[in-house]
């Protein structure tokens, strides 16, 4: 435990620059959006307290906004506002609307009618009633709303890292993807602390005597503006080209670190989720992205893969990995899973992914069509012998593979299947597997090597060029360390690659990563 804390402390000390920058960005994001939300939300709340027939629709819309999953809301923003700070701020602002509008409305409605009646009867004007009576009396309720909104925003702002807006989410998602607990904590602990501190400070403000409500009127905007100013938009330094990399890619030696070390690539980068990365590249928000060579969106968005001429990306052959215990319990499991071995090459996988990612067909349909076409489809048997828990990471290809395996198992054995799709990144899937939460999931040899096993650099260099050596190594080590068996590879290699828009690449005559580096250095 002590050692764990020590290393976490070391990690945070090592990354203190980045940590500070991310924390400030996080505070900035939270408060700019909060400030805008207050600026719009409070007048809206006041307005619907006057025009009550509008209160239903307005609160309804604010409520619906709140129910949209945060990552989806961020996704919706991309086509409208691109990537980076703007969509993140707008999305966060929309999230903060509901508590602010609702509490302003409730606070004003809740002011004793006799008091407003007296105010009116004594000859106060509507604006005097608003500013001298209603707002001061509603202030504790309004502050409670702002408090709720702040805590929500601190939390949701972590997701801003998915659309290149920075913040503590960069560490959190990087850590999840890289199986690095310290990195996760380095993001999660400050985020939690921010939430607690702001909640505490606002609670203080809230219990401030209502007499001093006037001070709150002036103090709140000033504090908000000060905190908002922490968020300095990433200044444009370095190259004109902008690269968007996933949190996982940013931290991997076969990712951004390798690009810097081996190629000397010095490109301006932002962290972004792979869910929106391709689209952002297509819409010219980004010029270079990290991607997977079998990704269907490669075809859909007319992107081209840059040749890895110095071989920093190891082979990523996909294969199911299964707990040994389960294989022993159900001997028929392994042959059934191996039916798929050698059946899907790169181009088939890309096509299947294209159908799911771009044509929006369901993974089940795509899986079934594929097996029918390959004449591997069999009707489900009784499924009474036992249940196999299958997991997958959170992207289309894994969903398809899972559905294929589900159909194969049901058709060829008496086992039934439960699927747990969308288990985030490698760390979540792998932890679920070693903790017996799932029995198997599809993994990639390169990921097993670099993310899970993390052997020393010398070992990596000796095997990385050869796909069989990598497979043999991970198969041997997984069995020894975790009692997890790598079954036969499915056939395709879903390697990391760098991609650009086809047109831009050909205009600039960039075909390899080395040529990209030269282009950037020259400009």
């Amino acid at each position, binding site marked *: 435990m002590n050692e764990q804390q020590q290393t976490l402390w070391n990690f945070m000390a090592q990354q203190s620059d980045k940590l500070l920058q991310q924390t400030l960005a996080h505070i900035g994001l939270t408060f700019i959006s909060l400030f805008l939300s207050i600026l719009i939300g409070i007048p809206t709340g006041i307005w619907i307290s006057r025009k009550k027939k509008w209160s239903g629709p307005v609160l309804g819309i604010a409520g619906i906004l709140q129910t949209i999953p945060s990552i989806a809301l961020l996704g919706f923003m991309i086509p409208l506002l691109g990537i980076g700070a703007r969509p993140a701020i707008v999305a966060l602002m929309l999230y903060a609307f509901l508590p602010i509008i609702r509490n302003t409305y409730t606070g004003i409605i809740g002011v*004793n009618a*006799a*008091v407003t*009646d*007296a*105010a*009116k*009867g*004594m*000859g*106060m*004007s509507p604006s*005097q009633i608003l500013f001298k*009576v209603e707002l*001061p*009396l509603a202030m504790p309720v309004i502050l409670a709303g702002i408090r709720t909104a702040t805590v929500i925003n601190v939390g949701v702002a972590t997701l801003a890292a998915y659309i290149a807006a920075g913040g503590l989410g960069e560490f959190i998602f990087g850590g999840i993807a890289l199986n690095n607990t310290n990195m996760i904590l380095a993001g999660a602990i400050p985020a939690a602390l921010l939430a607690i501190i702001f909640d505490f400070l606002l609670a203080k403000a809230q219990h401030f005597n*209502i*007499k001093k*409500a006037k001070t709150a009127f002036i103090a709140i905007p000033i504090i908000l503006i000060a905190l908002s100013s922490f968020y300095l938009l990433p200044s444009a330094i370095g190259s004109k080209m902008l690269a968007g990399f996933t949190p996982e890619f940013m931290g991997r030696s076969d990712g951004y670190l390798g690009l810097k070390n081996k190629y000397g690539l010095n490109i301006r980068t932002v962290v972004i989720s792979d869910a929106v990365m391709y689209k952002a590249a297509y819409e010219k928000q980004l010029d270079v992205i990290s991607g997977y060579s079998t990704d269907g969106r490669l075809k859909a968005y007319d992107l081209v893969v840059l040749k890895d001429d110095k071989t920093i990306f190891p082979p990523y052959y996909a294969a199911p990995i299964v707990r040994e215990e389960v294989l022993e319990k159900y001997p028929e499991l392994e042959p059934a899973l191996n039916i798929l071995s050698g059946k899907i090459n790169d181009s088939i996988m890309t096509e299947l992914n294209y159908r799911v990612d771009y044509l929006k067909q369901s993974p089940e349909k795509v899986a079934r069509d594929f097996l029918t076409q390959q004449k591997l489809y069999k009707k489900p048997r009784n499924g009474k012998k036992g249940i196999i828990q299958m997991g997958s990471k959170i992207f289309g290809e894994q969903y398809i593979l899972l559905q294929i395996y589900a159909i194969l198992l049901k058709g060829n054995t008496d086992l039934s299947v439960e699927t747990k799709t969308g288990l985030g990144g490698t760390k979540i899937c792998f932890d679920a597997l070693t903790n017996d939460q799932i029995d198997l999931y599809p993994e990639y040899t390169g990921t097993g090597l670099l993310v899970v096993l993390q052997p020393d650099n010398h070992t990596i260099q000796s095997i990385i060029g050869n796909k069989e050596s990598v497979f043999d190594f991970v198969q041997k080590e997984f069995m020894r360390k975790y009692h997890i068996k790598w079954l036969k590879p499915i056939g395709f290699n879903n390697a990391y690659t760098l991609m650009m828009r086809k047109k831009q690449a050909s205009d600039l005559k960039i075909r390899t990563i080395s040529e990209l580096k030269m282009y950037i250095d020259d400009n």
Partner: protein
Amino acid sequence: MIRLKNVSKFYKSTKAVDDISFEVKEGETVVLLGTSGCGKTTTLRMINRLVEPSSGKIVVNGQNILEQPAEKMRRGIGYVLQHHGLFPHYTVAENISIVPNLLKWSKDKIINRTRELLEKLQLSQTLGDLYPSQLSGGQQQRVGLARALAAYPPVLLMDEPLGALDPVTRVGIRKEFTTLDELKRKTILMVTHDVQEAFELGDRVCLMDKGKIVQIGKATDLLFNPINDFVRSFIKEQHFQLELENIFINDIWSLLPKAIDGTNENKISPENSLWQVLETVSARQQGFERFVSINNNDKKQIEIASLMAAYTQYKNSFNHE
């Protein structure tokens, strides 16, 4: 002075107030009496335009209220509410000085006026720095009255000013109100559902039902000349007490026997009501003492038997009118 002429208020199809006309003369107190929903509060609130009349004309101090800016007009009319409506975030002193502040009085003038009002309403000066929630119900109601009086409005509207108080506090404050010199000079329109309060505080009482005025007049008019059964039944329960409270020695002066000279006299003012006299007389023991009332060298004997006889005679005189 307040004058209403053919004033009505409709809410969609219901008539809350239906074509009423009456006048409150300068310095007079008129009480609007009636059950809840009879339109009395709506009538009151139309005068300071918290409710806009649907039709008719309302004149306050010679000016048509609809022809002035509502806010300016309201600052000239004191308004007392049932649930006091004090600002919970203002101190007592700040509450009292709301209207003077709106009228942009000087600071000194406001401070002096606040002090004066606290004193007149028998509130300790230290209460000025407290918040309304720290006061008792009776104190809150007094502050509410002080606030309405602050800017010397000639006209005062009171909406069930004692309605939220317990009966004991209520009687106490009612007594105070009747003796408050600032209230004596005002033109007051007050709303209540309490018959006794209406008869005690009002120079005239205006009984309303279903948006219309049933009868308007002095207490004795309603008591002895009820215009219909509604009036009769409305005051039936407390009729006897009300009668005694509203007949004064002066009223039955001629009907009382002359006093016999003697010693050991107790004087009773002719301004007293029969009720008060009966209370005083019956409080004495065994009739050892004699009671007389003196008015302009005229001296009358006061005994229960002769009082009752005069009372009956007085009442009968109304029936023959």
